[in-house]
């Protein structure tokens, strides 16, 4: 029976957050705590000739200055594997301060440890580092000539080239083609909480308070980097102030904090500054995409050719999978996708909300709009004509797909059919108005390892349910409380969900929009196992009114087991346990995820945007965003809709604001919240979010498809298409700037 799942209840961690009681990883008070500050390289390539640490070492309060000359050596760098696999998950296969070579600007070259943060920051300014600079490449423009086709990307998980059918033949038979080049600025995540680690050793055992999307990812990565047994490491993550991918992989600062703590024999806190967040925890890479679409006279796609070019680091072949969803969404027999890379002097790029889906779908969904225009078709109609009833790759059925319902409802909310489709036809005074739409889709990724949770019911009927997952601000702790309450058949108020601790039952990292699905599965399995265990105990207990009953006839609600047909026959969990002199009962649940479902299972959506363009000034204001999504079962309508809304506003930001510029010196030129623009409240339009519930029996036991990222996919395209409707201008570069519209 479902009573808690789906309800829009308030966040269980809300009061602690808004009152300041919540302790983030840089807030944990520890006796004897000292502070570490990392120092980044000023140059993007070359080597360190010398580091003079004397002045820093003699400064007040300084305990240690660690450089490549004296950093204690630990273990080895594990391979780059996405943290959803559940294992060690280093952000890049390079660990700094091992030698004098500089690979990218901001590369950590020293750690200064002092009694206070201010002393450490001051001492860091006293370091004298002489560099020998070398030529460098940091942008697509600089490295275009030396690009190569990647054999595999994304930690080796994806091939560098995907083909089906014959794309040349498909283009040859097309009645209409469009061939478009797209350019994208690099992006940074900018969560409000900068990454931070507090590390404390007790003998050879290490406790780490880390701002991470995966306490276990931090644990396993540290175990390898430090050569310490996993059993001797505990990672605690009580609160995370947003992440968006920059805490999905484990970068070098947690290990540096642990090494520094061991070196000085004191607990060490290492918090990155806002500026350091731009060169320490990855980014969405700058990229170019070339997209060629062919269609027959009815608008049915005959070919999709999609190539991407982007810089990666010198250590890893990383590209966000921009071609993935765009290759799977529409029924098209002939496809070719190719990733080309440039070795550049940046860190390894990483997951950034909608890693790839957002950029690839911007290309596909704006190109489809152009194709529709060429064919005289409505933008919605061309999408319906290419609707994939089964997966385009191998034709297997989708695990669930109510995209058609999303289109229909979104169009209804937008008044799509009533708009004047002619370019420049809609006006509000001198302001040009336009409507655009696009499809959203995000794959259902599966964790690589079994997901576990533990459920314990006390004799008074209250329950604790545990899993190691951290809540990065999405509301997962709240949703899991609801799942647990329904699984056990107890009231929501009687359940406490405990999370954010690697000592708790294993889960993979909360990444890839997979957290709610995979952890709800484990919590569901654990809590229903405990429920069934208690029912079995009652049926076997001669003292129970349910003694000898058919277990299939027993239901539980509000902590009371009863016969379905005779609700008066039953007893509470509490009565059962107390009679048996049991203080509690417990069960562990393990959910074994199905093999990768990302090809045939997606969260879908339809987005509609209304923009207002000031033609004299080139200013775009988004007036309205409408998103309707099929995300399977919704665990908490409030937090799920907040995720979707946040994603849509992020998509607007991707379209109009966000871009990290590479300076001529090979350093990010706008590494601050003053110059890297994210939207403010005054930029946020009216956002309408609806969900169309679908039943999905493939992805996980509760049919949860995930809402963390899909809201962003398609928003930028819908906005760009709306700008075209308003102005007639086709824009192929993100972010769109004022000058693009003059």
């Amino acid at each position, binding site marked *: 029976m479902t009573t808690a799942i789906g309800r829009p209840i308030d966040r269980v961690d809300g009061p602690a957050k808004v009152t300041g009681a919540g302790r983030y990883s840089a807030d944990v008070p520890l006796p004897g705590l000292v502070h570490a500050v990392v120092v980044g390289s000023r140059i993007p390539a070359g080597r360190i000739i010398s580091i003079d640490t004397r002045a820093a070492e003699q400064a007040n309060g300084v305990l240690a200055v660690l450089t490549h000359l004296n950093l204690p050596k630990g273990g080895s760098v594990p391979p780059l594997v996405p943290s959803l696999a559940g294992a060690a998950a280093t952000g890049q296969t390079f660990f700094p301060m091992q030698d004098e070579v500089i690979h990218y600007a901001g590369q950590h070259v020293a750690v200064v440890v002092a009694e206070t943060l201010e002393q450490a920051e001051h001492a860091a300014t006293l370091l004298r580092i002489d560099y020998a600079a070398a030529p460098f490449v940091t942008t697509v423009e600089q490295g275009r000539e030396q690009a190569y086709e990647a054999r595999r990307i994304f930690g080796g998980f994806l091939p560098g080239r995907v083909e089906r059918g014959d794309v040349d033949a498909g283009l040859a038979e097309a009645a209409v083609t469009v061939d478009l080049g797209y350019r994208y600025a690099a992006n940074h995540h900018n969560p409000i909480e900068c990454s931070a680690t507090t590390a404390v050793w007790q003998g050879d055992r290490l406790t780490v308070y880390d701002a991470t999307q995966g306490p276990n990812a931090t644990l396993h990565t540290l175990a390898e980097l430090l050569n310490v047994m996993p059993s001797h490491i505990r990672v605690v993550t009580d609160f995370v102030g947003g992440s968006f991918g920059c805490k999905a992989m484990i970068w070098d600062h947690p290990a540096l904090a642990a090494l520094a703590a061991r070196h000085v024999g004191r607990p060490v806190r290492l918090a990155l500054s806002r500026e350091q967040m731009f060169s320490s925890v990855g980014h969405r890479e700058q990229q170019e995409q070339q997209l060629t679409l062919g269609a027959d006279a009815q608008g049915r796609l005959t070919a999709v050719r999609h190539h991407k070019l982007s810089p990666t680091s010198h250590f890893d072949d990383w590209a966000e999978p921009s071609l993935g969803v765009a290759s799977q969404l529409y029924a098209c027999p002939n496809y070719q996708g190719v990733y080309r890379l440039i070795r550049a002097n940046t860190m390894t790029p990483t997951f950034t909300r909608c890693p790839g889906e957002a950029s690839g779908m911007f290309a596909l969904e704006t190109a489809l709009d152009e194709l529709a225009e060429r064919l005289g078709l409505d933008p919605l109609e061309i999408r319906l004509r290419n609707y994939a009833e089964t997966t385009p790759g191998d034709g297997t059925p989708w695990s669930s797909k109510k995209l058609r319902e999303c289109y229909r409802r979104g169009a209804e909310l937008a008044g799509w059919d009533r708009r004047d489709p002619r370019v420049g036809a809609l006006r509000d005074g001198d302001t040009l108005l336009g409507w655009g739409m696009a499809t959203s889709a995000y794959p259902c990724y599966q964790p690589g390892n079994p997901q576990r949770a533990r459920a314990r019911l006390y004799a008074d009927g209250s329950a604790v349910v545990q899993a190691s997952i951290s809540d990065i601000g999405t509301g997962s702790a709240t949703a899991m409380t609801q799942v647990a309450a329904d699984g056990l058949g107890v009231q929501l108020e009687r359940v406490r969900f405990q999370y954010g601790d690697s000592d708790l039952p294993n889960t993979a990292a909360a990444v890839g929009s997979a957290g709610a699905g995979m952890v709800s599965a484990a919590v569901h399995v654990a809590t229903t196992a405990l429920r069934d265990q208690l029912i079995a105990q009652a049926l076997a207990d001669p003292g129970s009114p349910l003694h000898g009953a058919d277990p299939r006839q027993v239901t539980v609600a509000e902590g009371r087991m009863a016969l379905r047909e005779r609700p008066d026959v039953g007893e509470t969990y509490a009565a059962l346990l107390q009679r048996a002199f049991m203080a509690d009962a417990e069960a562990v649940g393990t959910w074994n995820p199905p093999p990768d479902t990302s090809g045939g299972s997606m969260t879908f959506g339809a987005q509609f945007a209304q923009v207002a363009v000031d033609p004299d000034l*080139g200013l775009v204001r988004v007036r309205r965003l409408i998103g309707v999504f099929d995300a399977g079962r919704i665990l908490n309508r409030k937090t799920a809709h907040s995720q979707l809304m946040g994603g849509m506003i992020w998509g607007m930001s991707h379209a109009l604001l966000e871009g990290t*510029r590479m300076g001529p010196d090979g350093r990010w030129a706008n590494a601050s919240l003053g*110059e890297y623009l994210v939207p*403010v409240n005054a*930029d946020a339009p009216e956002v309408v979010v609806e969900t169309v519930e679908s039943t999905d029996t493939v992805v996980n036991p509760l049919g949860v498809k995930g809402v963390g990222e899909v809201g962003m996919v398609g928003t930028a395209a819908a906005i760009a298409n709306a700008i075209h409707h308003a102005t007639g201008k086709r824009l192929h570069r993100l972010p769109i700037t*004022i000058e693009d519209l003059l």
Partner: protein
Amino acid sequence: MMDFLTPVTWADALAVKADRPEAVPVAGGTDVMVELNFHRRRPAALLDLTRVPELAAWGRDGDVLRVGAGVSYTRLIEELGGLLPGLAAASRTVGSPQIRNRGTLGGNLGSASPAGDGHPPLLAAGAVVELASVRGTREVPVADFFTGPKRSVLAPDELIAAVLVAPADGPEQFAKIGTRNAMVIAVSSFALALHPGRRSVGTGIGSAAPTPRRAPEAEEFAAAHLPWDGPGPLDPDLARRFGELVSAAAAPIDDVRGTAAYRRHSLSVLARRTLTWAWEELCE
């Protein structure tokens, strides 16, 4: 080490500034603290002006208003919005509510940024800055106050005491272009004041020259050609020509927020629009 000097009277503040001319005055700290936090400067001393009560006061002084340098943007909006609507409009575009609570009119002038939001309306209104030191007090028209980017005529021993400005005697307008809708440095901005009583027009250009500046030719053109006698709809050509003259008065550069060409172009639009709005307001 850095000294933190905390005078509690205006006389003490001036004495301290005379004694420690290298001391950097700090009021709301919305500019100074950013510079300190980013290690862009490390002054030997900070001169805290928040405890000097005179600076936070405003009142009438004959025909003009005397607005203390320590009056915050929030107070400019809430207390002086009726008397100085142009300045209040500009103040509404400054930062966030928290920044507007802390940031002050005097601090804005002291920073002397070409992009300072408060400067164009002060220029348009013909305001005068009152500077003080132990040597005495002098009054400098805002138009003569700025000498370059982040530079002004302020002498090392001087502090900004107040701004002297006449209450609006006609419509005032302010318009600003930013790369987002709030918490943003202006790409360009423009302020306009109409003085129907004396048939004159004031202008102020922001973020489009080494200093905030007026557009004197545009002012003279508008004063000469606006139909003061028989207020009616504004001739679009007049508004357009006004915009061109304002644009011509700018001396913008390319930077990360916008190009010089866009700054010139946008100023012509902002000037045309603000003149149209102000004229409509006058005719109502």
